[in-house]
């Protein structure tokens, strides 16, 4: 495909409560402003009916994923902290597939485990994504996942879809059709916004849109990659944080023009 005409799948992530998990170090589950590459990988894998144990497929998808995201609303207050109490016991045990039960370490189980989870309230984020066309993915036995399969899976997903955490259930269809554009940044500009028009905050990969002013604010090394084999997050990728100009959608599109 020529660079002038990549096909981008458009997703609308909208719900009263959404979580874009960031780097967590303690009982506080933070949220970022934009979805992580690992989260979108999991969301797509979930729609396709993959299992947590399908690590190679997830890794390959994350490696091929190219996306940009735009915030279509900037509600105030932007964040909501939910407090959860979980009753954990020293004697809690579970069976495992390696043949020995696993229990809990540590000693302080007299009081409930208290943890905080941050959410973004009343959020609407538009995502455009495509899969890198790599030579190693062609030929017999290679991973042949296409954007069309992902789009079809969003319409009839294998499981209910959620945005970041399980209670974050979308208010409408996530897949919103496709657009053609040369770069991720340009693709975002093609998608009308539901709640706003003009400059919206956005994030795109370095090289897939402008890296200089006026559109780009800063270039950062973003830690949003998961090593699906070990189950741990690690590594960074370079992204641009900036803005993209969006047109307000006509009323018909606001109510969901795409089938």
């Amino acid at each position, binding site marked *: 495909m020529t660079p002038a005409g990549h096909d981008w799948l458009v997703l609308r992530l909208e*719900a*009263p409560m959404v979580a874009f998990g960031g780097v967590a170090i303690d009982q506080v589950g933070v949220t970022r402003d934009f979805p992580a590459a690992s989260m979108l990988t999991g969301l797509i894998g979930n729609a396709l009916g993959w299992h947590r144990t399908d690590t190679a497929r997830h890794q390959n998808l994350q490696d091929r994923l190219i996306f940009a995201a735009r915030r279509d609303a900037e509600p105030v207050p932007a964040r909501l902290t939910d407090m959860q109490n979980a009753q954990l016991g020293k004697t809690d045990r579970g*069976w495992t597939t390696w043949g020995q039960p696993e229990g809990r370490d540590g000693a302080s189980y007299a009081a409930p485990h208290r943890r905080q989870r941050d959410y973004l309230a009343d959020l609407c984020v538009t995502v455009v994504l495509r899969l890198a066309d790599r030579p190693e993915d062609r030929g017999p036995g290679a991973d042949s996942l296409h954007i069309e399969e992902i789009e079809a899976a969003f319409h009839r997903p*294998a499981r209910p879809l959620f945005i970041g955490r399980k209670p974050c*259930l979308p208010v409408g269809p996530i897949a919103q059709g496709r657009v053609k554009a040369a770069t991720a940044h340009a693709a975002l500009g093609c998608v009308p916004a539901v709640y706003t028009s003009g400059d919206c905050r956005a994030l795109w990969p370095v090289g897939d849109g402008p890296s200089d002013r006026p559109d780009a604010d800063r270039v950062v090394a973003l830690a949003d990659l998961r090593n699906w084999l070990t189950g741990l997050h690690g590594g960074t990728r370079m992204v641009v944080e900036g803005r993209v100009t969006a047109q307000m959608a006509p009323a018909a599109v606001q109510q969901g023009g795409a089938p």
Partner: protein
Amino acid sequence: MSAPRFIQIHSLHAYTAVLLNRDDSGLAKRLPYGGVMRTRVSSQCLKRHWRIEESDPHALAKLDGFVDSFRSRELVTKKVLRPLDGRFPAEVVKALEAEIQKAVYGDKGADRKNRQTLLLGAPEIDWLAAEAVRLAEAAAGDPAEAKAVVTEWAKSVKDNLKVLREQTALPGGLAAALFGRMVTSDPAANLDAPIHVAHAFTVHGEETESDYFTAVDDLWEPGQDHGADTIQETELTSGLFYGYVVVDLPLLIKNCGDDAALAGRVVEHLVHLVAEVSPGAKLGSTAPYGRAGLMLIEAGDRQPRSLAGAFRTALSGSDLDQAITALDDELGRMDRAYETGEARCHLSLGVALAAGGEQGSLRTIASWAGERVVDAAPEAAA
């Protein structure tokens, strides 16, 4: 329509002068939505009350007898041992069979009648089936060798199977089949929850009151000192809450040991629990009991979506008819734009939901939902 894959349950519940769910400051949980602050009940609070409910006639614990009468005692035979037939010599399979049954169900487990009722889901069955194949291969066609390896195996996984029995025994096993289980770091042994529950929130702006109260000594008599009574404040809120639940039917059926009839009963009970069980705290002082004013059930295979958008523009108050009309408008807009074709039925204490299919009682809509589950897996129901 193709076989349904999801059941979606939408509800409207009214509560007056209650404190259903608090944060760490003691105030009601909240949600800013559409520029207006709402009162919120968290997903984990709702699930906990549905899970631990005991007194409701449709509590999950009351499905014990139903599970007992079904196929749970034959799961290892059907899903772990019979697949070995034909792949390995009959004598080898026979040597493995009794030992594996005893290892899973306990010392008397070789006899079906003495087996404990365990609800083995896909992770348990997958692991046991893989272990059985590994043992059969290790026996290399020799029944005596099979006996030796399976005895050695049973000894080595004794602790693991003891915990597996504790986790899958009823009623906990049934709660785990619906609400999931994430105890260990082993993703292959954890049970994903087939139920997805959104945080419930009021369809209008928060209605809140700081309730000033004192506790005084009623037994005081003249001449005694006045002592120290207590003066406190608590927050009370009122509201009409929108709630939303999705059930992933294929996963629920799997977690129920491929028993679609049992999964259907679980969904039927869940519909009752959503409509009837209060997520309330402060039971003695606020009596937070109430039944749903509206229940809408949808069965379909398109991407589940909540109808929370109907209330993004906050309603002016907690009028049930106004909320049902807003929900109906949203459902109509969704249907016109996306034509997703869900089958529906509903219960209403107010106006009818035009886009909501047939209207019925809680009993009829719950049993309708249960029947859709059996539709979801015709092969498993047979």
